[in-house]
């Protein structure tokens, strides 16, 4: 194992700058849209502007005559009326999952749904012609409110289903035998003068993943294997699902995810445009490219979150939590995404978080509406769960008059109690919440800021200070295949790796985890350099092409290191075992007498030895090798984890709220995360910083808004407000480590940590700043206007809110002309 080598020679733990960055930031990258093939055509999707309507006619004639146009096709023209994109996660046996059509034929179910495609010689010609396709719609009333949609008698998104409820999924700790009955806990608390019951409703607003590189697909139908390049997180899943969807034999399809510019879950789906590009390329026998515009991406790529959470927590007056009941509505949008219905289920096991809660029940109702689909977005279910419990802990602390940090400490699993089996039946292998929290409190100067807060309150300062607290843990490293099987997930959770020792001693590492900005190439090279004792620079990491990496389950859920990385370790162990046999043979020693250290095979007690590169060359030459083996060191491994990994951390935010304007400013943010052993601290820091920015953005900046007609009103980056570096302070991030015991490297996932913990920390801080003024809640995002209104309401000085024109300006515009709300320039 690496930990026995000389510390100075170890790659593990070194803060290396990422080897892939030179290529990515100097333009020597290869993104899907950069691929130009001879004779390639361009595809543009004609999208419905209406959320819900019957299609009464599609007139293609003008578009077909436009310059450069090869064809204009509806689903019928492509023979695609019977093709539907499947959902891979039937969370209940009776889940309603209408297949998502590639193009709407009779009814459009959300604004942005495709109705036809235009194929032309250039992208500009395709776009010009797309504007000439005339689609006639009979508008239908859109179903937009998930809670109303779930009630009996509601108008239906899919009338043939007879309901808007896709599925209701329940976890009950009493029924599972992992805990007590929560209904009994609530009645007991209600009847007990020494207990409290706190009920709250929180909203998880709809977010847009907003990856940097818009989605793009190129399909080349030439050759024995059709080749599909896609800006996807999941090339392997895409290949399998393309077969399932279109019937093309899996062996006749090669999928390549070249350089991919971010995903955050937003590229985990298998989307109509991928299938359409394939069908059109096959039909025309020419390579075809589709690249979405940013507006299309915001409108039609899947969204995230969008839940209503009804929560009941019970506790003894001494602070001991006795029960937690969770009821969710989750807005699926118009169809189910690939894993969309499972997103709330991933959260179900995390509402109890780091706490010892004896009774727990989770009920989720997944609902169809006439909106864009929702699916995984960084954290997928776990940020929502963490938000709920961490907001509740603050609410409970207020109810009980306790310090919120002390109350958490009273209820969390102490470090002596690991491994600990939770009320959900998960076994947390390791962790030390005291250690992370103590360090965070010290870095933050918790006591000093509490004093300042007290002073500002006393002086009635215009700008008040709030202290936001959040702890978190998450189940990541998706996932033990048997657990996924028990949840009816449509795949396993293993990962594959191969290592090829080249004749010259260089090493190729093939991983099924398809990176898209995480730093896989660097981190995996560090691991292999240690495992094989070769220079970091001699390791090449290959991924994202089903011809090179035929087997894999790709990248999401903070799984790459804790599943994919371990598969690489297992493959490396096999390489070393094979090399040892050859070394023993060449050194004329018994295998038992060969020691391997830092790339050298030596005969115990002698100076004799050979480097792994020499062995690789000997295996290549194959002039002299043991008779009972093949002349090769190359090895494959598939690793199926036994358990999830459970990173955790404590996050503290100092929030300043200007009570005159409602402006919220994040003054200082401290987080101390425990992600186990760290392969590359620089990458961990980058993941935490990016995650924090996204989580803080949910708390303060982002929301996908629909108007009452089901139109996405913030469909450009002018009005879908992402924060930039100018909106965020420098973060103080540190890590502590209790190594995971569930894998040989002791590592835990880090990709989602910052996103999960930061949202509740920020909102708790905002409310803490205003609690003494009577403010009890502010919905996300906590915009200045929302905060100002909350203060006015609490003071009883609220004025009549002026009606709002929900159209937001877009494009280069800062204002809307009411006479010209679409902003068309005359």
């Amino acid at each position, binding site marked *: 194992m690496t930990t026995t080598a000389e510390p100075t020679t170890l790659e593990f733990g070194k803060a290396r700058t990422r080897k892939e960055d030179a290529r990515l930031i100097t333009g020597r990258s290869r993104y899907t849209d950069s691929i130009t093939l001879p004779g390639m055509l361009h595809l543009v999707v004609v999208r419905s502007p209406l959320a819900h309507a019957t299609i009464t006619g599609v007139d293609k004639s003008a578009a077909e005559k436009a310059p450069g146009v090869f064809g204009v096709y509806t689903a019928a023209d492509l023979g695609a009326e019977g093709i539907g994109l499947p959902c891979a996660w039937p969370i209940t046996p009776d889940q309603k999952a209408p297949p998502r059509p590639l193009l709407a034929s009779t009814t459009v179910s959300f604004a942005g749904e495709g109705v036809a495609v235009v194929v032309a010689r250039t*992208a*500009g010609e395709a*776009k*010009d012609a797309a*504007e000439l396709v005339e689609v006639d719609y009979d508008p239908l009333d859109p179903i937009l409110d998930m809670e109303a949609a779930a009630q009996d008698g509601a108008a239906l998104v899919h009338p043939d289903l007879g309901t808007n409820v896709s599925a209701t999924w329940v976890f009950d700790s009493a029924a599972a035998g992992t805990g007590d009955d929560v209904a009994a806990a609530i009645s007991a608390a209600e009847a007990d003068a020494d207990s409290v019951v706190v009920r709250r409703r929180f909203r998880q607003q709809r977010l847009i993943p907003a990856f940097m590189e818009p989605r793009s697909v190129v399909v080349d139908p030439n050759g024995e294997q059709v080749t599909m390049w896609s800006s996807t997180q999941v090339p392997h899943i895409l290949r399998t699902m393309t077969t399932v969807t279109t019937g093309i034999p899996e062996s006749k399809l090669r999928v390549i995810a070249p350089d991919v510019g971010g995903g955050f879950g937003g590229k985990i789906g298998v989307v109509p445009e991928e299938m359409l590009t394939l069908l059109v390329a096959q039909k025309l026998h020419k390579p075809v490219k589709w690249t979405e*515009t*940013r*507006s299309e991406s915001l409108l039609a790529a899947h969204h995230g979150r969008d839940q209503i959470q009804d929560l009941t927590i019970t506790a003894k007056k001494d602070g001991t939590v006795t029960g937690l009941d969770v009821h969710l509505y989750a807005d699926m949008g118009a169809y189910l995404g690939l894993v969309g219905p499972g997103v709330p289920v991933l959260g179900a096991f995390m509402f109890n978080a780091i706490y010892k809660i004896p009774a727990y029940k989770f009920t989720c109702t997944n609902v169809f509406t006439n909106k864009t689909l929702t699916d995984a977005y960084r954290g997928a279910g776990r940020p929502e769960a963490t938000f709920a419990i961490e907001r509740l802990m603050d609410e409970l602390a207020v109810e009980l008059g306790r310090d919120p940090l002390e109350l958490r400490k009273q209820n969390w699993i102490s470090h002596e109690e690991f491994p600990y089996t939770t009320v959900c039946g998960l076994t947390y292998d390791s962790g030390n919440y005291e250690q992370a929290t103590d360090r965070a409190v010290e870095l933050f100067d918790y006591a000093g800021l509490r004093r300042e807060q007290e002073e500002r309150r006393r002086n009635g300062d215009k700008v008040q200070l709030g202290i936001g607290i959040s702890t978190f843990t998450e189940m990541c490293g998706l996932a033990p295949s048997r657990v996924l099987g028990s949840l009816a997930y449509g795949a396993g959770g293993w990962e594959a790796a191969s290592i090829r020792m080249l004749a010259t001693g260089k090493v190729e590492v093939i991983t099924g985890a398809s990176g898209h900005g995480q730093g896989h190439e660097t981190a995996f090279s560090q691991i292999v350099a240690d495992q094989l004792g070769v220079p970091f620079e001699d390791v090449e990491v290959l991924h994202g092409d089903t011809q090179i990496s035929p087997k894999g389950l790709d990248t999401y859920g903070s799984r790459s290191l804790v599943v994919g990385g371990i598969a690489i370790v297992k493959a490396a162990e096999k390489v070393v075992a094979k090399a040892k046999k050859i070394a023993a043979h060449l050194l004329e020693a018994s295998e038992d007498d060969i020691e391997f250290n830092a790339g050298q095979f030596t005969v115990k007690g002698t100076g004799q030895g050979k480097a792994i590169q020499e062995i690789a060359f000997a295996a290549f030459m194959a002039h002299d090798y043991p008779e009972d083996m093949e002349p090769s060191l190359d090895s494959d491994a598939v690793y199926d984890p036994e358990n999830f990994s459970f990173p955790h951390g404590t996050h503290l935010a100092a929030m300043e709220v200007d009570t*005159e*304007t409602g*402006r919220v400013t994040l003054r200082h943010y401290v987080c101390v995360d425990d992600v186990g052993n760290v392969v590359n601290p620089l990458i961990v820091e980058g993941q935490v910083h990016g995650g924090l920015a996204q989580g803080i953005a949910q708390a303060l*900046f982002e929301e996908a*808004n629909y108007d009452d007609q089901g139109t996405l*009103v*913030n469909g*450009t980056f*002018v*009005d879908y*407000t*992402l*924060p*930039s570096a*100018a*909106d965020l302070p420098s973060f103080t991030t540190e890590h502590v480590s209790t190594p995971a015991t569930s894998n040989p490297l002791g590592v835990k996932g880090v990709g989602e940590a910052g996103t999960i913990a930061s949202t509740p920390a920020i909102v708790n801080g905002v409310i803490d700043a205003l609690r003494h003024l009577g403010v009890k809640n502010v919905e996300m995002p906590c*915009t*200045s*206007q929302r905060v*100002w*209104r909350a203060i006015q309401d609490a003071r009883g000085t609220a*004025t*009549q*809110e*002026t*009606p*709002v*024109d*929900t*159209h*937001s*300006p*877009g*494009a*280069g*515009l*800062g*204002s*809307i*002309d*009411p*006479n*010209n709300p*679409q*902003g*068309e*320039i005359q």
Partner: protein
Amino acid sequence: MIPSKFDYVKPASVDEAVRALVDAGEDAKILAGGQSLLPVLRLRLAAPSVIIDLGGIPELRSISEDGDRIAIGAMAPHHDVMRDGLVTQHVALLAQATATVADPQVRHRGTLGGALAHADPAGDLGAVALALEAEFVIVGTSGTRTVTAADFFVDYFTTAIGEGEILTQVRFPKYTGWVSHYEKFNRTAQAWSMCAVAAALKVDGGTISEARIGLTNMGTTPLRAPGVEAALVGQAATAEVVRAAAEHATEGTAAPSDADAAADYREHLARVLTGRAVLTAVG
């Protein structure tokens, strides 16, 4: 994203530009820095047949002293304006407001004239030009005319620039020795102003002798706040005086209501920000 097809002309002089504009008819658009026009073209909210790029006329970028005025070429990029010594010395408010426009990339491409001619009421520079009583030099086939700021801004995205005319220069009176501040309120650092207040004051021995207050995004055009100005002049620059004067900020405004800020909230902001702008200016 790909705009509709258009012809592109890059004239080398203002005369040539005017001729090109007249030749193209009403379907032409002038391209200055392109920071508003290009997104609109790419979203196909506009589909002009001809784009006339003023980027090939170097004299439109000049910033110079012209007697008691500072004359700024319409094509001077924001970055040049905010760093120019003449501007920072004599029209400090303009430099201060320009420094808050969007981000460095936009400020390097975007121009003073382009922003003012676009006349988005959420844009920052209109309120400054109005408060500082700038003059707009407009050239057309019939020659050159000068329009006051009060007459320049007509409505949403509409100015006094007529068909076949081009804004070539903006002339600011000198406010040497005045104190000023631009108080901007937006959702994120790069976002348009939800509301902003431009304040320039002449203070003599602790008494405000002259005041100019401009409001951003409080109506269909940039607005002056004459009530505030009147309440400040002749008064000592104290917090109480300023607070009372700021109460007049919304007189004559017609604040828009959008998803970021309903009108009542905007009006509240205008009063608060007016107070802050004036107090920050007087230090």
